[in-house]
């Protein structure tokens, strides 16, 4: 039986990001690499999207129009609506991410495009703070079909033999990122039988279903056969903004899978500090507890619906429930781990972004 672990091989190679779109001008290049994730038999394994799909454009913008929620470039980079998803024609759903300036890390889906402008679902308040010269990257979201392509059946996943539970072999559970509350169950379950299908809606082809870049999915093996997933992609070289939603009446779990392909120390998370979202604790007891960070590990193997391996909080330094006297600042969270940020309720609700990035020690 495999022990799930990550093997990261990163080649600092120039990635020709502009090759995918006619006329696109590449300004920057990404380091690229691959991550290997073992998916043991009869086990839930969390898979974070630690590497990004290649950017089709990385460029400075000429202007931002908050009212129109659009960004314009100084050159004609696109053919009209080539960034728009179209069944059987254009399988990608694209997102644009700000990669410099005060809004670095913010991202939004591209809804349509002209030759030099993209229309997005950014909030106006974000684009109010985006200025000419700020850089952005446009990438496709990972999808079920690109993360687990049909050709990889038997390698990264096991195809189901029918549409029923008895025929199920590999399932992909997508966490709930839309509602608020604690211990949220999965939002949807997918399986492969000819194509990726959704439990509850088995007829539709879900191959092109986009996956958020900062969450994880759970591979649920219902098979006696272990598989192995290789994710190849680009290393994120900028901040990534993850909205931390704090409500007035209930604590809220935010499911996070960091787009970071290496282990990251608690102190490197960038969660704590002025202007950062994590509420510190006032003592080491539950009564004084602020926010909590729950970490889910892929070891040991076996079983479904695994509980978190440990709960951390911050009181002067990172501490672990059950061993609160020890300084855990240097605890390395294994790459690709599933995280839940448990945000305590507050009479004044808020959304504060967590700006995560690959640790500076990464070369």
């Amino acid at each position, binding site marked *: 039986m495999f022990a799930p672990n990550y093997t990261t091989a990163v080649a600092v190679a120039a990635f020709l990001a502009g090759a995918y779109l006619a006329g696109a001008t590449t300004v920057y290049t990404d380091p690229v690499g691959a991550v290997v994730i073992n998916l043991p038999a009869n086990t839930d394994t969390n898979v974070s999207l630690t590497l990004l799909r290649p950017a089709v454009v990385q460029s400075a913008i000429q202007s931002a129009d908050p009212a129109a929620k659009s960004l314009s470039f100084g050159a004609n980079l696109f053919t009209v609506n080539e960034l728009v*998803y179209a069944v059987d024609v254009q399988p990608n*759903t694209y*997102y644009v991410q700000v990669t410099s300036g005060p809004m670095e890390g913010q991202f939004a*889906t591209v*809804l349509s495009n002209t030759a030099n402008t993209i229309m997005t*679902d950014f*909030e106006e308040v974000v684009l109010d703070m985006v200025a000419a010269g700020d850089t952005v990257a446009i990438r496709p*979201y990972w999808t079920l079909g690109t993360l687990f392509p049909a050709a990889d059946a038997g390698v990264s996943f096991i195809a189901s033999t*029918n*549409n*029923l*539970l*008895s025929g*199920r072999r590999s*399932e992909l*559970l997508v966490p*709930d*990122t*839309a*509602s*608020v*509350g*604690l*211990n*949220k*169950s*999965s*939002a*949807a*379950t997918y399986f492969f039988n000819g194509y990726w299908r*959704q*439990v*509850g*809606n*088995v*007829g*539709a082809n879900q191959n*092109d*279903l*986009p996956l*958020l870049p900062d969450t994880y999915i759970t591979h649920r093996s219902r098979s006696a056969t272990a598989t192995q997933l290789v994710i190849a992609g680009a290393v994120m070289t900028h901040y990534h903004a993850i*909205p931390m*939603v704090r*409500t*007035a*009446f*209930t604590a*809220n779990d935010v499911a996070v899978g960091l787009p970071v392909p290496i282990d990251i120390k608690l102190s490197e998370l960038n969660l704590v500090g002025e202007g950062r979202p994590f509420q510190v604790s006032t003592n080491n007891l539950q009564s004084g507890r602020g926010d909590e960070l729950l970490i889910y590990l892929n070891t040991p193997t076996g079983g*479904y*619906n695994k509980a978190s391996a440990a709960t951390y909080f911050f009181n002067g330094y990172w501490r672990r429930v059950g061993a609160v006297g020890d300084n855990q600042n240097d605890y390395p969270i294994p790459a690709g781990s599933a995280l839940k940020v448990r945000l305590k309720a507050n009479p004044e*609700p*808020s*959304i504060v972004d967590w700006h995560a990035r690959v640790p500076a020690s990464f070369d």
Partner: protein
Amino acid sequence: MTHKNTIARLRTALSLVALSAACAHGSITLNLEGGLLYDAFGDALPDGTLIIAVSAGVDDMFEQPTPGAFVVGDDRLIGSGGADQNVAGLGSFSLAFTTVELSGGLAAGQPFGIYWFPGYTNISQELTAGSSFGFFTHPSWTVPNDGDTGSFGLETIAIDGLVPDTMTIASYTVVPEPSTYALLFGGLALIGVWVRRRSAAR
């Protein structure tokens, strides 16, 4: 557009006011799949036929639907859906009840079962006396723990499963007088024994 909905973030979907008013609890996800389900005449259910999942509530007893009420007493509706022949042929189904809140009397560990109502497609319809319905549960069918995703199957011999085809006929009738499901529980116990024997035999 499905893809857009999938990637819609909470921050863009809800205002802070809405968030402040939100009443949230832990949740479960229940995946229920199987077939073939039949009407009272032994014909496979047409697509869209109403199927509901119901918890037995705190008394662990399923109560019989009555005119005007698909769910009665302390039983709790988990979710509703329809038959879908894409799953495994006419009369089959695949239901995903996602992020169901454990509240209002619904709790982990409670038995649950499914009912199907030939001639009905929506739980908002008026259930009338004399309507036929089917019921199935199993000893392993209990409401999952908070945060868990549970999958449960009901697969008849007709589609290479273990459950006798005769057990998925809508052989019950909605009557004005509520009554408990002693008969069904008897059947439930038999199913458990039968399934265990089948498993052991294999």
